[in-house]
C-alpha cells in the first residue's frame, strides 16, 4: 500500500521511468554568475520586502527579518512594578537558561570548574533535553582524520560563512573539535567506527575533507541523551517547564539573574545569579516568511529578546538558513528535516516529470533557491492535497547505487519517519521543499562565550559570530559543546570573583524609552515563549475569566 494519493503516484511513475537513465549521471554545478542570479531571484533571504532595519538598541540599523524585528520592537512581557525582584527565591552562582546541548554542557562544566552543585540552577522551557540539539541527524564535524587538520576546518568554516565570521571564534571551534569528541567518548557516546576502530568520517557540504562524525542518523539524540543522563547523575538542580521571561541587571547594567515563569502554575520566580548563561537556541518557530521549520516547539527566539533588553549586541541576523529538503508530504511531516546525507548518498531532486533540474549537492542556499524556482517559477512542482508545493527527492537511487539494504542500514530515522505514513523511501521518492532550519546569527560572543554585557554568557544557536552568514552541516553540533563548555568554565570563573549584585529591572525602563523615542507604537509583547497553533475558532472565542 502506498502512502501517496493516485495523482501523486502518476508523477512517481514518471520519476521511475527516468530513474535508470539518471542513475550515475548528474546535473552540472552552477557557475558563479548563475548562482548569484538564482539566489537574488529565488532565495528567501533576497526577497524584497521581507526585512527591515532595527529601529532601536545597540544593533540599531541592522537588517533583520520582519519576524525578528517584530519581537525586538515589542514591549517586555512584564512591567517593572509587577514584580518585586529584591525578593529572590533562588540565589546561585551560575544560572543556565536552556537545557539543550549547549546548556547541558555549560552546567556540567560549571560544576567541574568548582561551582558547588547547589549553586547551579538549570531552567528549561520544555522538558530537559528537548531541543534542536536532539533532532540533529547528519553529524558533528571534528578534524580528526589523518589527512585533516583544524587549520583546514578553520578555512572551511570561514568560507562557508562568507568570511563574515569572527576568526577568533572560528579558531576555537576548529581547534576544540577533537577534544569535544574525546569528552563525549569519556561520557559514553557511541560514535560510528570503522572495523579497524578508526572513526567513520563522511562528507558534508562545503568541507574539503571527510570530517563528519556520526551516531547513525541520530547523532544529536545520542549526544544529548548521554549529557542529560550525566546531568541527572551529577544531581544538578533544575526547573523544567519554566522559562526565562526577563533578565535582571544591577545598577551598573550587569546581568545578575533572571525572572522565570513557571508554566504549570503561572507564577513568577526570581533568580539572582553571579553569572547567567543564555542557551536558548534559535527562532524556527517564528516561521520567517511563513516557512515551515525543522525546529522544535520552543524555538521562538526568546534569547535574542532577553539579551537585547539588557543591551547585548546582535549580529548576522540578516542571513537565515533554509534547508533545501524539508518534507512537503504527508501533512504530518511538513517542514521536518530530510537529512542532507540522503543527497550525499545519491538521492536526486527531480521535478514532477522526473527531470533533473539542479546538482544535488549545491550549497544549501543555491539548492533551496533552485527548488523554489522549480515549484514557483517553472511550475514543475507537485501540489499536495493541502496546497503545498514540492519536488521529488528520489531516494530509491541510494539502494540502486550502493546496493539493497543501504537505506535501512544508514538511515534508520528517515526510513522510520516515512514508513509511519506508508511511504517506503527505498521504493518511492519523497516530496520536499525548503524549510526554515537555522539562525546563522545571534547574540555576539567572544571566545570566552561572553556577550557584550558583563554577567551574561551565551552558547549554541542563540549566538552570532561563529558561523558568519551561513553555517556548514555538522558545525552547529560542534558549536554547542565547544561554546557550551566555555560558557560553563568562564561563568564559573566570574562567579568566583564577583560579589552578588542587586537585581533590578532598570533596563526595562530604558527599553520602553527606546521604543518611545523611535516612535514605535505597538501592542506586541516579547518573548513570545510558545508559537500559536490553536484553531481559528478557539482564538476568536477566548475570554480570560480565571
Amino acid at each position, binding site marked *: 500500500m502506498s502512502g501517496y494519493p493516485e495523482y501523486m503516484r502518476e508523477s512517481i511513475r514518471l520519476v521511475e521511468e527516468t530513474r535508470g537513465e539518471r542513475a550515475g549521471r548528474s546535473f552540472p554545478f552552477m557557475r558563479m554568475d548563475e548562482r548569484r542570479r538564482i539566489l537574488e531571484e529565488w532565495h528567501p533571504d533576497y526577497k524584497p520586502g521581507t526585512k527591515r532595519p532595527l529601529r532601536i538598541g545597540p544593533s540599531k540599523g541592522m537588517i533583520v527579518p520582519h519576524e525578528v524585528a517584530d519581537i525586538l520592537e515589542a514591549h517586555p512581557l512584564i512591567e517593572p512594578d509587577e514584580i518585586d525582584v529584591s525578593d529572590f527565591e533562588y540565589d546561585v552562582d551560575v544560572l543556565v537558561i536552556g537545557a539543550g546541548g549547549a546548556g547541558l554542557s555549560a552546567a556540567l562544566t560549571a560544576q567541574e570548574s568548582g561551582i558547588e552543585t547547589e549553586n547551579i540552577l538549570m531552567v528549561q522551557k520544555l522538558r530537559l533535553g528537548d531541543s534542536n540539539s536532539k533532532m540533529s541527524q547528519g553529524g558533528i564535524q571534528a578534524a580528526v582524520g589523518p589527512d585533516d587538520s583544524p*587549520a583546514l576546518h578553520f578555512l572551511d568554516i570561514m*568560507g562557508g560563512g562568507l568570511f563574515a565570521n569572527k576568526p577568533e571564534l572560528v579558531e576555537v571551534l576548529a581547534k576544540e573539535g577533537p577534544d569535544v569528541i574525546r569528552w563525549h567518548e569519556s561520557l559514553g557516546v557511541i560514535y560510528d567506527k570503522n572495523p579497524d*576502530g578508526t572513526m567513520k568520517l563522511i562528507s558534508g557540504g562545503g568541507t574539503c575533507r571527510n570530517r563528519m562524525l556520526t551516531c547513525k542518523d541520530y547523532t544529536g539524540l545520542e549526544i544529548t541523551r548521554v549529557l542529560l543522563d550525566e546531568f541527572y547523575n551529577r544531581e544538578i538542580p533544575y526547573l523544567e517547564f519554566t522559562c526565562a521571561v526577563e533578565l535582571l541587571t544591577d545598577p551598573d547594567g550587569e546581568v545578575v539573574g533572571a525572572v522565570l515563569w513557571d508554566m504549570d502554575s503561572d507564577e513568577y520566580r526570581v533568580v539572582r545569579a553571579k553569572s547567567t548563561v543564555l542557551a536558548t537556541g534559535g527562532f524556527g518557530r517564528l516561521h520567517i516568511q511563513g516557512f515551515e521549520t525543522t525546529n522544535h516547539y520552543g524555538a521562538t527566539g526568546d534569547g535574542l529578546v532577553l539579551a537585547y533588553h539588557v543591551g547585548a549586541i546582535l549580529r548576522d541576523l540578516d542571513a537565515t538558513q533554509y534547508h533545501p529538503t524539508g518534507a512537503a508530504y504527508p501533512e504530518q511531516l511538513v517542514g521536518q528535516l530530510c537529512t542532507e546525507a540522503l543527497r550525499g548518498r545519491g538521492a536526486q531532486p527531480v521535478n514532477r516529470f522526473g527531470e533533473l533540474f539542479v546538482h544535488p549537492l549545491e550549497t544549501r542556499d543555491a539548492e533551496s533557491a533552485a527548488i523554489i524556482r522549480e515549484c514557483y517559477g517553472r511550475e514543475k512542482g507537485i501540489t499536495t492535497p493541502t496546497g503545498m508545493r514540492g519536488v521529488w527527492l528520489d531516494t530509491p537511487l541510494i539502494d540502486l547505487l550502493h546496493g539493497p539494504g543501504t537505506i535501512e542500514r544508514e538511515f534508520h530515522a528517515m526510513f522510520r519517519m516515512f514508513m509511519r505514513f506508508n511511504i517506503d523511501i527505498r521504493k518511492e521518492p519523497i516530496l520536499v521543499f525548503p524549510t526554515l532550519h537555522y539562525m546563522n546569527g545571534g547574540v555576539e560572543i567572544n571566545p570566552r562565550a561572553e556577550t557584550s554585557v558583563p554577567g551574561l554568557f551565551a552558547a549554541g544557536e542563540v549566538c552570532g559570530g561563529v558561523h558568519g552568514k551561513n553555517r556548514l552541516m555538522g558545525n552547529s553540533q560542534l558549536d554547542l559543546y565547544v561554546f557550551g563548555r566555555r560558557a560553563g568554565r568562564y561563568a564559573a570563573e566570574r562567579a568566583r570573583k564577583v560579589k552578588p549584585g542587586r537585581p533590578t529591572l532598570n533596563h526595562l525602563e530604558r527599553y520602553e524609552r527606546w521604543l518611545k523615542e523611535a516612535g514605535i507604537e505597538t501592542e506586541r509583547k516579547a518573548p513570545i515563549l510558545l508559537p500559536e497553533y*490553536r484553531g481559528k475558532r478557539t482564538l476568536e472565542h477566548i475570554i480570560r475569566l480565571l
Partner: protein
Amino acid sequence: MSGGEMVTVYIMGKRYRVPANLTIMKAMEYAGYQLRRGAGCRGGFCGACSTIYRMRGSFRLQVALACQKMVEDGMIITQLPFIPSEKKRYNLEKLKPGASVFLEYYPEIARCLSCNTCTKACPQDLMVMDYVQAALRGDIKTAAELSFDCISCGLCAVRCPAEIVPYHIGQLARRLYSRYIVGPSEQVQRRAMEVEMGRFDEEIQRLKSLDTDTLRELYSRRG
C-alpha cells in the same frame, strides 16, 4: 485523504470534530489546546508527546507519539504530560560492565516476564524486551545496539507489568558499551593532544593574519 474530511475524537473525554489529516498533536491544537507539556520536537525525535488512546468500542489500550500518529474516527485520547520513573544516579567511571551493574541499579529487571508488552508499546518499533533480556544476561553490546534508536518516551515503562523502566536500562547499557567495550578512539585522543601541544597554532595564526581577499583565494584553491 481529502482536505475536507472530518473525524470525531474525544480529547480527555470531550468530543471534537477535527480534520482527518491531522496528527493527534495538531488535532489537539486545532481543538483549542495550547500545549505546554506534551510537545517537543514535533518530529518523532524527542519522545515528549507520549499519548494513550482507545478506539470507541474497543477494549484495547493503545499508545503513540502525538506528533506522529494521525487521528482516527472514534479515538479517545489523553496525553501523558510526564512519566514517573526513577533514574538511578551512578558514576560511570566506577562501574564494571556486566550483568551485575543492571541488577545493582535496576534489580526489578530480574522480574521480566518476557511478555513482550514493552516491545508492542514502542513507537520506534524497537525490540525492547530483547534488549532488557540482553542486559539481564550481561550482553551489553546487544542491549546497546537494540536500544540505540530509543527516544526515551517512556511508553515501555508505563506498560510493563513488572514495573521495569527499559529506557533507563538501555541508556546505561549504551554508556557502558561506549566507555568500556568499544573504548576511546586512539585517533581522537592523539589529535586532541596534538592540538593541546600547539601543533596547529602557527598555521591558524597565519590564516587569521591574512586579509579577506587572500583568505578567499586560499579557500577557493584548497584541495
